[in-house]
């Protein structure tokens, strides 16, 4: 398939090059109205798309034939067309644009508007800005270049509709979905965002306030991101764009998080061992694995090895560091290759586009990802007044797993072992303790079982997860102009995404060997082995199907009567989205020749080698089908008087089957209203500094729906595997009053531009009020029992406010151009009303900051910490009970919980997300060179740095950052704050230190996000086959320039490892 398309493209290219030519040379000059020459204006032939730039002497251009039309454009000026009929020299005068932004289309998904027609708040990220960053994910390219949009890093949220990490203007919900609504062209997009190839995207519009977003109704509360794809146009010469790049990712720095040294850790294990801490592990009948040093200690205790042997073995272990091993043998450099080919053209009645993309990614854990995108877009004008558009977007991607994240290579008790060798002295990949005590598995089967070891560097080859995603997004639409200014628009879109996930485990891998061994029935007298699970591989397959259809009918009205201009739309739409799936397992699987067994007994318990009775895992299952339906009616209108005053409003009603119980709840009007005033068009206006000044104000409400919530007393059904009886489980207590969340927002906006657009931008102030937010309201669980202690109700309110400032300045506009884009955002989102224990108990914020914790009057992400009283003479940490020092850690926790701040045990620190953030993007161009770099900043927040918990260290093998600074002898308490080691371990003692104010750091930082260097070559020579070529180099994740903390912690990666630097080199050509 892929090859055929390339051949097609080559044929098309060949045709294109075979035209007859009769070139002529044309000279011209370009000036502004005062007569001074304009340099660096682009001069382009419309017919051939070749071009040149002007200098102080004007320009010379070769045209292939006459007549032709030249397009002359320059930043800050209106573009002009000049018809060339003969070889006479031309004089072209460019006029400065009033408002540069007027050229930008704002696509709300329902209509395309000009900035001066809209009162709401939006931001458009155009193609040039999107291409400042590279990578496979389109949304990632919004980072650092989009006003009021913040990528939350290191936060956790259990809501399934919270995948992007993006917040627009802070949070709008406490427990509801956090993702903004994603719209592709005209409709909501629920597929995998990775299916959208950034090369196919023309621009992105972000709708920020209620007036802009409320047209999207009940799901728009978090803001809307509208992705507009590239389209073919009428009357366009054939254009071929080819873009390719290579992205290289370095190895992560595993030593970024400081950890206890291996010798210290082994000594620590020895101490605990001597205290009997591990005794129950050695006698545990489940035979868990334990760290190699513990085996040595145990052997010495049992007299199996001498003291000398023990010492030498321990010394050998102390020389190993797992992180070096993982860095050396585990990680590799990642490489992504991207290829994108785009053909478009059009005649008077047809506009078309054909595009193909191919991405190939091999990441640093050896997982691979290959993706093909194909696009066909067509617009026809069969009769006057009617256009029909149709398009298909096809995605096919395959993801193959690589090595698992090394932090997951723990024992079943989640114990991480910091000193493991992955490769033996002879260079072979060795086994590590993972699931069972190695000595147990060596002996248990009496030699009758398969090798039961786990080899980290081998296993991934034999236990592969392969995910294939196929998606088709097809649309057809018709637009018919009924009378001048009124047209009807019908749109239909169908989407289907099939995800097939396979896990292929062969007998060389642990998964299959383990299961075969577990269920091996060894006859003790004869030694004959009966395999319940047949010898061979195991294939587990699952299918997940997602689909939707949308229909929209809409009337558009747009007329100007003298000084009055009215634009309005109204219509209805229907959306049905569904998802289902199935899974199946095949044992004894061999791909070629195909063999497998399905007639295994999945219903009976079998004795296992390790002494349990267990069911065979797997079997076939069907996922329930979920189907959400929405019916919506919408309208909006705006009236402009004399191009100065704009009144606008919108109304939308949504119905859905999500709230089946009460029909009244299904209908919920959402609305907005706005006023705008172009001050600079008033006759009395004469501020010389600002040539453009517009004020607008809006107010409105949009909704937020959690698709997983329901108001009905519902159960999920199934079959009990033991009794075979049909069962129903009541999963959540029903709340018949459950409704949708509402987000009210008021926005005040000032747009301005100085003369000649040297500085332009906007300043906005907004207030958000979240009402009736989903909140788990604590309830008396005696009434329901089980695991839940709360019930979901529309019980909470929140308040947000903020300021957005965007500035664009043309600092230098000569041969060298220098532009700066400055973004500044301030936002606070606090809980206004909440019930239950966390609402008034600020103590819930101790050590928090990574998840939303609603405390009335405090930010949603906030942090508090224990007051710190230093160490006593024995190195014990001291906290406070009211104002006295205390070492009663239990009492300190109780006091914090019961008495709050007044108890004196802890203090409130502040927001755990940036209150102020933004970026500064500078671009320099000279001749064909453009250099741009983006500096991002985040200020006004706090984080808890990882410190030391002896308890966690014993339980997990990590979390030992401060170990070398711990109190060791009297007098140390004057030099250090790190508590002494004490046994028995006390989790509360550790929690006091780890959660205390001395471990709070300021998150503030300034980061160099990316540097982009490109060189463009425009063709002046018709013999060359291309019109323009651009070569670019991009480096991302360059690191921190300044940070407020002194621990060298990257605040975006407090407990994880920072993203390695990413290098991209690429080329864009236009034929």
């Amino acid at each position, binding site marked *: 398939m892929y090859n055929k398309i390339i051949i097609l493209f080559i044929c098309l290219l060949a045709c294109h090059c075979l035209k007859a030519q009769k070139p002529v040379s044309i000279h011209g000059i370009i000036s502004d109205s005062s007569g001074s020459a304009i340099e660096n204006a682009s001069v382009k032939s419309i017919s051939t798309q070749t071009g040149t730039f002007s200098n102080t002497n004007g320009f010379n251009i070769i045209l292939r034939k006459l007549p032709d039309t030249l397009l002359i454009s320059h930043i800050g000026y209106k573009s002009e067309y000049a018809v060339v009929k003969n070889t006479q020299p031309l004089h072209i005068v460019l006029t400065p644009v009033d408002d540069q932004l007027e050229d930008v289309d704002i696509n709300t998904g329902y209509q395309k508007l000009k900035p001066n027609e809209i009162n709401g708040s939006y931001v458009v990220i155009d193609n040039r800005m999107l291409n400042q960053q590279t990578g496979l994910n389109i949304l990632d390219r919004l980072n650092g270049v989009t006003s009021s949009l913040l990528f939350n890093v290191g936060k956790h949220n259990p809501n399934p509709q919270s995948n992007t990490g993006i917040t627009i203007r802070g949070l709008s919900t406490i427990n509801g979905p956090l993702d903004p609504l994603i719209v592709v062209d005209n409709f909501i997009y629920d597929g995998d965002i990775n299916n959208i190839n950034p090369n196919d995207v023309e621009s992105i519009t972000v709708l920020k306030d209620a007036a802009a977003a409320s047209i999207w109704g009940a799901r728009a509360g978090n803001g809307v991101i509208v992705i507009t794809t590239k389209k073919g146009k009428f009357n366009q010469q054939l254009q071929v764009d080819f873009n390719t790049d290579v992205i290289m990712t370095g190895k992560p720095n595993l030593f970024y998080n400081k950890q206890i040294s291996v010798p210290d850790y082994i000594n620590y294990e020895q101490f605990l061992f001597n205290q009997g801490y591990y005794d129950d592990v050695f006698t545990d009948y489940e035979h868990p694995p334990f760290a190699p040093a513990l085996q040595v200690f145990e052997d010495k205790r049992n007299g199996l090895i001498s003291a000398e042997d023990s010492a030498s073995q321990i010394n050998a272990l102390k020389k190993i560091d797992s992180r070096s091993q993982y860095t050396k043998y585990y990680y590799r450099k990642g490489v992504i290759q991207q290829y994108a080919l785009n053909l478009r053209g059009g005649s008077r009645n047809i506009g078309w586009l054909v595009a193909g993309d191919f991405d190939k990614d091999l990441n640093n854990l050896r997982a691979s990802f290959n993706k093909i995108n194909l696009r066909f877009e067509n617009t026809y004008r069969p009769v006057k007044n009617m256009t029909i558009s149709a398009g298909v977007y096809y995605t096919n991607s395959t993801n193959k797993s690589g090595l698992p994240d090394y932090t997951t290579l723990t024992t079943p008790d989640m114990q991480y072992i910091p000193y493991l060798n992955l490769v033996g002295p002879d260079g072979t990949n060795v086994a590590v303790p993972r699931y069972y005590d190695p000595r147990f598995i060596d002996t248990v089967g009496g030699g009758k079982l398969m090798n039961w070891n786990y080899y980290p560097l081998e296993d991934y080859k034999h236990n592969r997860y392969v995910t294939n995603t196929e998606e088709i997004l097809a649309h057809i639409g018709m637009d018919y102009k009924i009378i001048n200014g009124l047209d009807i628009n019908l749109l239909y879109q169908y989407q289907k995404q099939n995800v097939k996930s396979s896990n292929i485990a062969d007998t060389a891998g642990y998964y299959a060997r383990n299961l075969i061994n577990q269920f091996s029935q060894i006859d003790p007298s004869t030694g004959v082995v009966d395999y319940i699970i047949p010898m061979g591989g195991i294939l587990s397959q699952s299918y997940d199907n997602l689909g939707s259809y949308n229909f929209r009918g809409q009337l558009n009205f747009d007329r100007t009567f003298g000084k009055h201009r009215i634009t309005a739309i109204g219509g209805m739409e229907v959306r049905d989205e569904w998802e289902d799936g199935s899974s199946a397992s095949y044992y004894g699987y061999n791909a070629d020749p195909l063999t497998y067994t399905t007639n295994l007994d999945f219903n009976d318990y079998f004795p296992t080698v390790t*002494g349990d009775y267990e069911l065979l895992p797997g079997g076939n299952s069907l996922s329930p089908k979920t189907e959400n339906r929405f019916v919506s009616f919408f309208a909006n209108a705006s009236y402009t008087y004399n191009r100065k005053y704009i009144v606008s409003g919108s109304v939308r009603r949504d119905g859905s089957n999500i709230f089946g119980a009460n029909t009244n709840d299904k209908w919920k009007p959402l609305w907005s209203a706005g006023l705008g005033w172009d001050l600079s068009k008033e006759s009395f206006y004469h501020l010389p500094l600002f040539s453009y000044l517009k004020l607008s104000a809006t107010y409105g409400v949009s909704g937020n729906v959690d698709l997983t919530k329901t108001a009905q007393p519902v159960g999920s059904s199934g079959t009990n595997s033991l*009794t075979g009886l049909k069962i129903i489980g009541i999963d959540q207590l029903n709340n018949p009053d459950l409704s949708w969340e509402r987000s009210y927002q008021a926005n005040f906006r000032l747009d301005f531009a100085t003369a000649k657009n040297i500085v332009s931008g906007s300043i906005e102030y907004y207030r958000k009020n979240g009402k009736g937010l989903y909140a788990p309201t604590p309830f008396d669980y005696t009434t329901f029992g*089980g695991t839940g202690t709360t019930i979901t109700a529309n019980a909470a309110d929140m308040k947000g406010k903020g300021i957005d400032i965007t500035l664009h300045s043309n600092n230098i506009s000569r041969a060298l151009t220098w532009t700066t884009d400055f973004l500044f955002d301030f936002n606070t989102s606090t809980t206004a009303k909440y019930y239950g224990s966390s609402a008034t108990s600020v103590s819930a914020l101790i050590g928090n900051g990574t998840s939303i914790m609603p405390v009335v009057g405090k930010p949603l992400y906030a942090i508090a910490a224990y007051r710190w009283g230093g160490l006593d003479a024995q190195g014990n940490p001291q906290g406070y009970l009211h104002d006295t020092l205390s070492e009663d850690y239990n009492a300190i926790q109780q006091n914090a919980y019961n008495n709050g701040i007044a108890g004196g045990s802890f203090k409130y620190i502040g927001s755990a997300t940036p209150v102020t953030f933004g970026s500064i993007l500078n671009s320099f161009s000279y001749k064909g060179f453009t250099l741009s770099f983006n500096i991002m900043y985040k200020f006004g927040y706090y984080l808890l740095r990882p410190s030391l918990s002896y308890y966690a260290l014993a339980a997990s093998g990590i979390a030992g950052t401060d170990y070398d600074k711990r109190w060791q002898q009297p007098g140390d308490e004057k030099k250090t704050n790190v508590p002494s080691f004490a046994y028995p371990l006390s989790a509360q003692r550790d929690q006091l230190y780890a959660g205390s104010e001395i471990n709070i750091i300021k998150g503030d930082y300034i980061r160099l996000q990316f540097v982009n260097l490109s060189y463009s070559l425009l063709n002046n020579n018709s013999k060359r086959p291309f019109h323009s070529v651009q070569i670019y180099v991009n480096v991302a994740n360059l690191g921190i320039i300044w940070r407020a903390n002194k621990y060298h912690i990257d605040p975006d990666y407090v407990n994880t490892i920072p993203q390695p630097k990413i290098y991209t080199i690429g080329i864009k050509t236009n034929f």
Partner: protein
Amino acid sequence: MKNKMIILLLMAAVAASCNKYLDKKNNTQLIVPNSLSDLQAILDNADQMNNSLTPSLGETSADDYFLERTIYNGLILGYQENYTWRYYFFPTENDWSFGYKPVYNANLALDLLKNIGRDAQNTTAWDNVKGSALFYRSYNFLNLLWNYAKAYDSASAGKDWGIALRLTSDFNVPTTRATNKECYEQVISDTKDCIPLLPDYPQAVTRPSKGAAYGLLARCYLSMRDYNDALLYADSCLKLNNQLMDLNGDGDIPAGISASYPFKQFNKETIFYSEMDGFPSFYYSSKSRVDTILYSLYADNDLRKSAYFKRNADTYQQFKGSYSASLACFSGIATDEMYLISAECYVRAGQVEKGLADLNALLSKRYKSGMFDPVGSISQTEALDTILNERRKELTKRGLRWMDLKRQNKEGANIVLKRVEDDGTYTLLPNTNFYALPIPEDIIKLTGMPQNDIE
């Protein structure tokens, strides 16, 4: 053309706005329970009605097991306190919430049943739902009473606090605490009501039956020290099922008594199946060791020594004899328990021979073939002591010991519990307030119910 378009649009609008379009269930697995079979399915959901649900904090407080000091020292906040009879509070998912889970489901079934008429066609199904719901509710009330209320004492039952008697699924009805008298009366009357509604034998032992109801009443009266009634119902129960597994060899012990978990789940002794919740886990996991005095009570020829226990490397014993065929502790009603209730009650009533006959019937299946000497010709007191010892030996880790301690101390047994740890020596004296375990503090705060007295 244009008119057709408008008509098309309007038609679509009308069709779609039809509420039927939005009445589509949004998840095919979601079920709005309304039919009899739905209600039965709610009650058949073993994970919410039988498995890992009955209270375990009494068992963690009792004396059939101990923790080695290294293990004790490694326990987290609350667990040490729980193990040593000091005040503790486990928030959220806890013993109390597990115990009330089946109560909610039973109440929901009873509430929804009010909307379904009982007629000739559905009599059996309707009765089974009603009877089962009443049984489940009573069964769990009784378990909660044993843990969270004082031992039943007819003299003070009208004043002693019982538990929360939730009799509705409506969470808007506030929870209040009833007296011990009200609670036990509720259990007894509901269980008696369910007897005629239930079948003699259940389709699966996770379902209630007449036998289960008799067993529940026998248990209830025993814990009230009403031995005559206890005997009556234990006897009725055994009339329906008196099968015992023979530890010398039995179809329900497929791999022999030395297997990791010798007893089949749902074996022939099980009349009604339930398990204690796994919270906290130290009382049944690999951390737990069998009390050495208890272990010393088993004779060498007693097959339970191999069936119930497994020697650890540290020389102490670990329990493996649960009727759940897993680590989870079976807490349901079984025939062996009924034999022992019957035996005890006969002896207490002075019918020593009859009592010993019941005991010998049980023990003959527990000892090596040919090596068992029936217990005979002993005094009433000796017989009672023997039976109580056998009760402890047979029913270890069944969630019954805490109730036994309470009632036996009421009878004057004067059993003092003691734990010696690095951080102190802890004792629990007979009939002290701590035998009614603390109710979770958050529930006390939310409902305003009185907390148990904690010394």
